[in-house]
């Protein structure tokens, strides 16, 4: 049994984690584009870093980073921007510098003989911020040696800062990836490669951890380039993201099973009914066959009696034959061909059901195929047939449709979900479900409308939300429509709903007319050779 509550909880947790991750991503992006919102720690770090670096360089009288390495570098990311600004500032008058940063002294002061004070103050602030930020910061030199780490950095990897400073930074990467990292480090400093992204590294204990990293090139007091790397630990997020993906797969499966489970009752009955009369017919016909066999036996006896026996024997056999043949020729005998016919029809019916069921059980095979949506709807209606057993009327208003590239199994799932919902919404005696298809504005339109109880406006906007359900516990997972939404979205289509309480509900699906068969080839195909395009089935 699937533990929905648990899955639901972990999925929610994971969704939150993914949100956090997206936030982090936005932050990084904003950083790299210089569009940070005000009052963010990262902004402080950045501005302070630039001021401090600037002050350092000015104080030490060192030349700026060679402009070449900046200009030749791949598209600047992260801190390249401020490096560039820094370079510009070096070559121009102080008045051309950007607006003063909130935590920095006015630039004019820097050149007015109070450099030492400014430097000290700025450095003090920078140190406080760097030590308190949860962002790990490390400075590495050309020889791969770690020159500085903040507390957060050391903490991420499980070391004390003193254990890292002076070591090669490869202490924190997978042993077999050391050469790769040394190469990357050299190429980064030379401006050829970027560090930005997610990486797998090693904790002190040897267990793998995942980090989101970005880096910047700065020039050290010796005029040689250094790499400053900013690191945040995303192991937890990666784990949750993974869990989320797994729960989603599980939920899809659960939803599939639940709608299948609802169908089982109907399907079992639909199959057992023909099985009932087919079996009974066979037993009846078997008994009849035995009687006929007896009769033939008697005829053979008669033949030998005619040739070798007495007239009395012949007469006796004849009367036996009369008796047997009278017994054979009863109502069952007269109706036997009809029994054979109905048995064959019964077997065909079972075959038909199994075929439809098979089409449905292939839900996870997202094989794209040129499909006529009208046929998909018909096959879904067949599967959902038992639902209409009351007085519910189904009106099909199909237009002429081109075949389009879709996953037929997934389309069937969407249609089954919408049709099942419609059946549940309508009155079982006066219910009417209209299924309309057409081509409009170069798109295939599918409308499934019912005259049921409708959806109140407050629910209407939530019906595509995962887990939203108005059904009783155990009656629905609240995922059917959200999965339908996802499937249609994946097909680059749209799904909309209009509903009026007491009047009915209308779902409108549009699908692009895509006949590109290359799409199909790019998908792995698990279809059996007996699929519908083969000469065998259907």
């Amino acid at each position, binding site marked *: 049994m699937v533990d929905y509550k648990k899955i639901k909880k972990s999925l929610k947790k994971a969704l939150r984690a993914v949100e956090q991750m997206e936030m982090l991503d936005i932050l990084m992006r904003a950083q790299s584009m210089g569009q940070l919102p005000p009052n963010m720690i990262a902004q402080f770090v950045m501005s302070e870093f630039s001021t401090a670096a600037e002050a350092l360089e000015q104080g030490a009288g060192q030349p700026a980073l060679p402009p070449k390495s900046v200009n030749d570098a791949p598209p600047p990311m992260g801190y390249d921007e401020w490096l560039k600004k820094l370079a510009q500032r070096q070559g121009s008058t102080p008045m051309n510098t950007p607006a003063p940063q909130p935590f920095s002294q006015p630039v004019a002061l820097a050149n007015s003989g109070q450099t030492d004070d400014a430097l000290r103050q700025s450095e003090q602030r920078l140190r406080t911020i760097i030590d308190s930020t949860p962002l790990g910061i490390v400075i590495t030199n050309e020889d791969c040696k770690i020159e500085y780490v903040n507390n957060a950095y050391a903490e991420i990897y499980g070391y004390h800062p003193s254990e890292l400073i002076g070591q090669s930074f490869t202490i924190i990467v997978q042993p077999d990836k050391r050469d790769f990292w040394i190469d990357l480090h050299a190429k980064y400093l030379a401006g050829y490669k970027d560090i930005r992204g997610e990486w797998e590294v090693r904790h002190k204990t040897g267990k793998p951890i995942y980090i989101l990293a970005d880096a910047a090139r700065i020039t050290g007091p010796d005029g040689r380039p250094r790499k400053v790397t900013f690191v945040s630990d995303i192991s937890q997020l990666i784990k949750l993201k993974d869990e989320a993906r797994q729960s989603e797969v599980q939920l899809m499966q659960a939803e599939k099973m639940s709608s299948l489970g609802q169908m089982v009752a109907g399907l079992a009955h639909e199959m057992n009914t023909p099985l009932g009369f087919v079996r009974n017919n066979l*037993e009846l016909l078997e008994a009849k066959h035995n009687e006929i066999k007896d009769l033939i036996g008697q005829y053979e006896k008669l033949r030998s009696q005619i040739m070798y026996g007495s007239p009395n024997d012949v007469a006796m056999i004849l009367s036996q034959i009369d008796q047997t043949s009278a017994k054979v020729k009863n109502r069952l005998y007269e109706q036997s061909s009809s029994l054979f016919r109905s048995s064959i029809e019964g077997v065909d019916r079972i075959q038909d059901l199994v075929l439809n069921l098979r089409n449905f059980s292939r839900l996870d095979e997202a094989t794209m195929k040129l499909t006529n949506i009208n046929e998909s709807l018909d096959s879904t209606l067949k599967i959902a047939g038992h639902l209409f057993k009351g007085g519910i009327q189904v009106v099909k208003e199909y237009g002429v449709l081109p075949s389009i590239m879709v996953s037929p199994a997934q389309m069937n799932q969407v249609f089954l979900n919408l049709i099942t919902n419609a059946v549940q919404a309508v009155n079982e005696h006066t219910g009417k479900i209209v299924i309309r298809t057409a081509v409009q504005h170069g798109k295939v339109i599918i409308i499934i409308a019912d005259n049921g109880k409708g959806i109140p406006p407050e629910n209407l906007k939530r019906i595509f939300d995962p887990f939203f359900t108005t059904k009783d516990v155990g009656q629905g997972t609240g995922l059917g429509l959200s999965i339908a939404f996802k499937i249609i979205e994946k097909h680059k289509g749209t799904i909309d709903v209009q509903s009026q309480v007491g009047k009915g509900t209308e779902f409108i699906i549009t699908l692009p007319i895509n006949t590109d068969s290359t799409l199909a080839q790019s998908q792995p195909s698990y279809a059996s050779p007996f699929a519908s395009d083969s000469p065998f089935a259907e």
Partner: protein
Amino acid sequence: MDYNPQLLFVDDEPMILQSLSLLFEDYTVLTATSGEEGLKLLAQHPISVIVSDQRMPKMTGVEFLRQAKEIAPHAIRILMTGYSDLDAVINSVNIGEVFRYINKPWQADKLRETIRFACAVAGQRMVYVSQKPATAAAAPSVEAKTEYEILFVDSNDSHLKSFQDFFASKYTCHISTTASDALELLRKYPISVVLSDSMLNDSDGADFLIAVRNRHPEVVTILMTGTRDAKTAIKLINDGQVYRYLVKPFPRESLRLTVESAVIHYKVNRENPAMMFQRLENDTIFNSNGTTQSLRDVLSALRQTLDMRSS
């Protein structure tokens, strides 16, 4: 059999009806493709045995059998269906009061036996009814203590206590936590109704009720359970002729009404010897393959002589 039993088959699938009428060529068979049609036929003909499908458009089998019970209370009701929908099974006990629950596809021989037996019971019932009008309508007075004795079996002592408190004013109540003690009490006292939980200290409640049925066929049995299980329910119908399948928790009032109607049912049963046949059936036809075989032989011999006579 000196009466010609009439059978009514109700199924929305005409091919089932055709197949069944040919299986029961020896009987007068009426068929209907819907519950409504079936009820009409029931009002016009003296039907002995009704066999109905469950899943039918408009009127379900259980609903049809409930109404059939009112039109022809003496007819034996059998539900024959392709899927054991849990609600349908439980309702077939509690609402349809069915004699048997049969799964499709069926075995021709077994179905013939069941129908033959059902016809025998129905024949007895009709003889009884024609001799003496039904007295079931005479409801016992609400206030006075009746002569009927009831047995409650449950592994939970406090439940037993509350049952006893609730019913003591009207019936003599016996209680037991085990099946073996309960069977002992059944031997000692003239108990009318047994209500058993599905879980007893020494055995399964359903098995206990089936044992009660076999030893004391006149006693009306009721199962009280916290778990709804189609298999158990079907077993209880077919082997135990259980009167009700109650799902806990239930309101006191509904339990009171159930016990009252069970007592009335007991009264009718006690005065009607036909019910004793169910014990005979359990002992001879289904519980022993050898007997079934010989019975079948006897039947086919019988059929042959009938055929000879008619030809």
